[in-house]
């Protein structure tokens, strides 16, 4: 069994580059990195601050043999990208890593200041020297972890957790509050949330499944689905388009919500939708390479009318 550095070095023998993380010297937390040779690979780390889903880079690396370090949740994105032919299984070397749970670094920084010293030990979390309740500072998605260990990998670095994944999409923490609202209240809830949106499209750009990238329908001139104004109405429209386009494709990695500069709970929309799709089609995006997305294989005659 090898650590992350040795594993990456090995994988580099057969790939052009490996997508992983290194520690940012200023903040002491992980930042995405690309390793091309053994020397670079010395800098690789895996720890509880490795939140970024590196699968987002795969569709831009179609011509390379790519190694990618993947947590359980990231592996779901890799699987979904393979299913959708955005990346070929053969070009990939997936380095699986078992993941306990990830820290919500942004939340820590927002409360204690950027770059505050973070020491995450087995059962204690020290922020700026102060012992805090670790549960309060882990990524929201980790509370309902679907996959602590990756389902797809070529090699495992470190140890797997051996944890049994949660078998169903855990509702978003705001779920109970949200479903108790009337339709009008829901609308005003989102209007309020989207009034902070600045249309930076970070939600889209960090999403592994939003691979339309530069030709995204939200910005086409003809037809023009969204207006140019930066306001709640347009942002709501944009996000509804995005969420709809992720129906049966969102793997719940939570990157959009993590990236949002103004704290809009985007995963509330996606979790609700993912949950509904799971109920209707018994499908969870990225759960298995063999599964076929409902939008690809759904047959109106058979699946609704029962006629073959």
């Amino acid at each position, binding site marked *: 069994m090898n650590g992350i550095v040795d594993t990456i070095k090995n994988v580099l023998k057969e790939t052009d580059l490996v997508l992983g993380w290194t520690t*940012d010297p*200023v*903040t002491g*937390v*992980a*930042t*995405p*990195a*690309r390793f091309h040779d053994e020397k670079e690979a010395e800098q690789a780390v895996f720890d509880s601050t490795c939140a*970024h889903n590196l699968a*987002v*880079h795969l569709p831009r690396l179609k011509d390379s043999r790519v190694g990618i370090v993947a947590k359980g949740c990231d592996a779901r994105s890799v699987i979904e990208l393979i299913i959708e032919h955005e990346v070929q299984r053969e070009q990939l070397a997936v380095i699986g890593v078992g993941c306990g749970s990830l820290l919500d670094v*942004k*939340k820590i*920084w*927002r*409360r204690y*200041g*950027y*770059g*505050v010293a973070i020491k995450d030990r087995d059962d204690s979390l020290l922020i700026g020297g102060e012992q805090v309740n670790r549960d309060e500072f882990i990524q929201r998605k980790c509370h309902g972890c679907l996959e602590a260990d990756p389902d797809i990998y070529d090699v495992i670095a470190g140890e797997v957790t051996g944890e049994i994944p949660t078998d169903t999409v855990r509702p978003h923490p705001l779920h109970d509050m949200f479903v108790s609202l009337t339709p009008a209240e829901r609308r005003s809830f989102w209007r*309020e*949330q989207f009034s*902070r949106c*600045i*249309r*930076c*499209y*970070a939600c*889209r*750009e*960090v999403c592994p499944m939003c691979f339309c*990238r*530069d030709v995204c329908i939200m*910005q086409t001139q003809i037809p023009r689905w969204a*207006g*140019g*104004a*930066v*306001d709640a109405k347009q942002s709501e429209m944009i996000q509804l388009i995005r969420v709809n386009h992720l129906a049966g494709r969102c793997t719940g990695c939570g*990157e959009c919500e*993590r*990236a949002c*500069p*103004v*704290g*809009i*709970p985007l995963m509330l929309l996606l979790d609700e939708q993912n949950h509904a799709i799971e109920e209707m089609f018994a499908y969870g995006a990225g759960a298995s390479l063999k599964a076929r997305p409902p939008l690809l294989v759904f047959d109106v005659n058979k699946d609704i009318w029962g006629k073959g």
Partner: protein
Amino acid sequence: MKFIASDRIDGLLERLGERGPVWAPREPEGAAGTVLFAPWRPGDAVELDRFTTLSAKKLVLPASEKLLSFSYSLTPEGEALDITGADQGRGDTVLFGARVCDARAFTVLDALLALPPGESYQDPGYRSRRRNLLVITLACTAGDAACFCSSWKEGTASTQGSDLMLYPAGEGYLARSVSPRGEELLALDIWEDSDLEPPELAVTDRVPFEALEAKLVGSLFSDLDFWRELTAKCVSCGYCTYTCPTCYCFDMYDEMSSSRDGERCRSWDACMFYLYTLETSGHNPRPTIAHRYRNRIGHKFSYYPANQGPVLCTGCGRCIRGCPVGLDIRDVLRAAGER
């Protein structure tokens, strides 16, 4: 010096409110800990300890604004077109709790957008809003690991762009006016006299960038591999440009409100977007993230200083704190300096 106790800040804000809307750093409900400059109303809590995620630039450059309204109509002589300029101005507005980097950003933008008449093109909306903005700045006794305003000579001691400076001291703030309008504020009867000494101000990271102006149009410009390497993890979103207090680029577009009426508007735009420079022919002079990031850094540290004077950056660190992929502009500037 004049002094105000922390528990009387609300009183000060109320008095400021007599001059116009007051914007202050606040943490909106349900915003996951984000602090933003937002309109303040009596009873609202003000957050003066933490930094805001977004800058205060929208007070002078709204994220989107109407420039013109137009309307077509049929007359006996044929089709008529009416165009009316929108009122882009804003009355007196108070920005409370800006930081030195926020206030200085206004003076950096002034160098392009508020030049004296006759010298260049004007931005009437910007000028009017800027003229009517009263800036009350909170000096920093501590920065965080993203701050690098000390890269500029005056660092945290700068008073550029401010009307009134507040310095944390004792259980409140010492006040110093740095403009005639600031002087007026000190005449309000809410200040006490104090013997407290002004505090020692923070010293933040220093990034050398003086040599970059020439390099960025020379050897570094043609070194696309340099930019590719440094931006490998960038995902090309607009986070850095939209949170930046000095990024001012915009898009213009028309919106129809009926088949005959509409508005010409402008909105923030980001040079990191592929569509920003995409031409109808399909040609894009900045087709990759590396091209676009090169332009972003070039504009800030070479083109703007060459054309307008100041560097288009104040070291506020916003683009660093929340970058979804942890790209630190200082790493790029230092690497560029060493190249």
